[in-house]
């Protein structure tokens, strides 16, 4: 259906009237701050004032051991959390998909609860459970004779990051599970039946029939989990404040600390720009790798 230019012009005017409220909030509170952030990253903006320093912040960042440590922690979180979340949610999704509707919605709900309750409520209770003297885990471990005295899970550089990843895991798998259950519902059931009549095994059915059709969902799950893991912040701010000795500091946490504790806005904005670029690169790479995988 082609439109005459007159009609199209009329449609354009009407469309922009409809778009106006959304664009007001989007341009005002998303696009403008993004642009401001990029501009500020080239200045040394701080409490006292601001002057243009071009790339100085970026050069300084790559010589800043705390930033590099935070970047490393962030990458560790992403590299561990993304595969674990994807595999677990796919497994849980397939396992509960075959259950009765009531059991399915019960489990789906349970795994979604930590997302609903929000990081603060989740973190305060985990922090208590991990506590060296008052925590449940240490009490049970000491009671069972595994430890002779409480272990500072959150205060030890070897375990703190693992605790962060565990909690991140419980707050991350809810959404992928919902997505996988929905995606499995869209798999052509006549093909699955035909294959099982022909004697295909469970594994064959999964890899040959179900996997290709849930591939777009997997891609989406991987991308959103990557973005969320890169932004891991609330958890850390509430659980460890980046400690001990920056063992749990992530780029987002260091950004917050730099901007709102040390008031180095320009420097922090440069971190934000780098984080955004890294996330964009990761997402693009995942798209490329996973799309390439399906065409082969």
């Amino acid at each position: 259906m082609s439109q005459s230019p007159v009609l199209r012009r009329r449609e354009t005017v009407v469309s922009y009237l409809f778009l106006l409220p959304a664009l007001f909030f989007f341009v005002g509170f998303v696009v403008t701050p993004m642009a401001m952030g990029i501009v500020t990253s080239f200045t040394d903006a701080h409490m006292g004032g601001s002057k243009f320093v071009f790339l100085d912040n970026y050069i300084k960042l790559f010589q800043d051991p705390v930033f590099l440590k935070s970047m490393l922690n962030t990458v560790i979180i992403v590299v561990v959390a993304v595969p674990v979340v994807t595999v677990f949610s796919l497994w849980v999704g397939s396992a509960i998909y075959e259950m009765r509707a009531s059991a399915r919605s019960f489990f789906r709900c349970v795994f979604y609860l930590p997302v609903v309750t929000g990081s603060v409520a989740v973190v305060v209770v985990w922090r208590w459970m991990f506590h060296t003297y008052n925590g449940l885990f240490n009490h049970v471990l000491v009671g069972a004779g595994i430890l002779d005295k409480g272990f500072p899970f959150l205060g030890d550089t070897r375990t703190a990051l693992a605790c962060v990843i565990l909690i991140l895991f419980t707050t991350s798998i809810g959404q992928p599970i919902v997505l996988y259950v929905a995606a499995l519902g869209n798999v052509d059931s006549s093909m699955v039946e035909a294959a099982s009549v022909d004697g295909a095994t469970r594994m064959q059915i999964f890899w040959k029939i179900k996997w290709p059709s849930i591939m777009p969902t997997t891609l989406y799950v991987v991308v959103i989990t990557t973005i969320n893991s890169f932004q891991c912040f609330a958890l850390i701010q509430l659980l460890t404040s980046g400690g001990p000795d920056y063992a749990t500091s992530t780029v987002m946490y260091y950004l917050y600390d730099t901007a709102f504790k040390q008031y180095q806005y320009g420097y922090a904005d440069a971190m934000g720009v780098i984080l955004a670029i890294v996330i964009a690169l990761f997402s693009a790479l995942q798209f490329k790798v996973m799309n390439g995988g399906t065409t082969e």
Partner: protein
Amino acid sequence: MTNDRKRSYVIFSIVLLVVLAILFLFPLYWIVTGSVKAKADILIKAGESVRWLPFTDISPTGENYAKLMKSTTELFTLNAFGYKITGPEIPMAMRWLFNSVFISVMAMLLSCITASLAGYVLAKKRFYGRAFIFTLFVCAMALPKQVILIPLLSLASTIGIANSPWAVICPVVGWPFGVFLMKQFSETIPTEMLEAARIDGAGEARTFWSVVMPLIKPGFGALAIFTFINAWNEYPLQLVMLTEQEQKTIALGIAALQSSDSTDYGLIMAGAALAAVPIIIIFLIFQKYFTQGITMGAVKG
């Protein structure tokens, strides 16, 4: 043989699911039971057994909640026409809860309005700049929203909304997910129905109100519950924007309780329960729409 293997796989998967479910439910259980434990029951001494079960091990007490409600403030204060109007005196914790509800409800209403209008035209109208605007929305969604916290704060201070609920509401409404979701729902509107309305002489506004709105109703349900929960849990934004005690949300309030005395677990858990229980109830009531929202938003087109 295969049947045996199949049965053992099913048993294995059920056991693993139940263990995982306990891992997920236990923190909630620990919040709720912790909130009604007396101070002496909360700190476990070496050698004693943990007080697990309500009523047998724990004698429930309201003292933590009483302490949480002790400090008070006004429900709201308005300065209008030189008069200062103040609301009734309520506990500070209830004020935090009220702030959370206000932010979430406002973000929800505004998102429903802006996203349904924008989603409809992006799905159904062909106009100049459509591809550009849509690409802009999609690109923004792929970017980490937390990196704009710093410029957002300076923007909010400049226009004078820092430390007010609007500093949280506006960026939440601006986030393009809702537009995207409503576009997905609007795609399902049959174009013939829109044309029929036009032939019958309905204007654009009337078409939207009486043809489009009824058809995208499920979308409103999904978007409303999604935005409500998102705004409720938008902790980083709340943390940066709301620093005054009276403006805090319930999430910020609990975080403040924790940082002022991190070992008063009963009080902290009472706060956590006050934050978690209302949102869980809302989630359970609107669960159906919620699942729909997550899945519709994911199908990128």
